């Protein structure tokens, strides 16, 4: 049984690592800011999700498992929001100082 669980972890974490590789290839190869942003936020968040999935069988107890899932959801939330915000800033051109009202 434990070999099966370990095998699952190997596969999930290995796949996660491959998504990190894909994200980096995207960063290196894609021509402009928006496509690079796409590669970064899509591939890496999926990679992190797979890593979390692979680690889940190894944590002891419910609370650590919930924390792992919460970490992934938080990264998804902030990754999605930050990429939207960065993309808008990129489309507006170079940011300058923005005085308050």
């Amino acid at each position, binding site marked *: 049984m434990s070999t099966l669980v370990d095998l699952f972890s190997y596969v999930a974490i290995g796949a996660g690592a491959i998504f990190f590789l894909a994200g980096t290839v995207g960063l290196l190869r894609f021509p402009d800011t928006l496509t690079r942003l796409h590669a970064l936020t899509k591939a890496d968040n999926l990679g992190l999700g797979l890593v979390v999935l692979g680690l889940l069988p190894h944590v002891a107890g419910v609370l650590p498992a919930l924390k792992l899932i919460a970490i992934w959801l938080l990264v998804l939330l902030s990754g999605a929001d930050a990429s939207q915000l960065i993309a808008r800033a990129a489309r507006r051109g170079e940011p300058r*100082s923005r*005085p*308050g*009202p």
Partner: protein
Amino acid sequence: MNAATVFGLLATALVGVGLYGFIVNPQPLRKILAFNVIGSGVFLLFGAIARRGAALGLGGDPVPQALLITGIVVAFSATALAVTVLLRLFDETGSTTLSSGVAPSASEPDPAKARE
């Protein structure tokens, strides 16, 4: 090469890099950054020494680790104060130069200050 030696040597390099940046970068914000690099080098050196003191199942000597937490918080408050002083200097003079006898640069003072 265990972790304590690797990060201890890294810490010495960080102090040097930060010191160089602190001297040669004319922009005060860059000096603040460089000062923080020096500071983190010192912290890391301290952390490496704490790691060497691992004993009785503890991953490191807890006394230096506790002091590190204090140090990081104090370094942050000093950085925040320095940055605020710098921004205030910029608001007043429109420049951040630290050299005497140089006229304020042509850049406009922050328009945020004009409002009342």
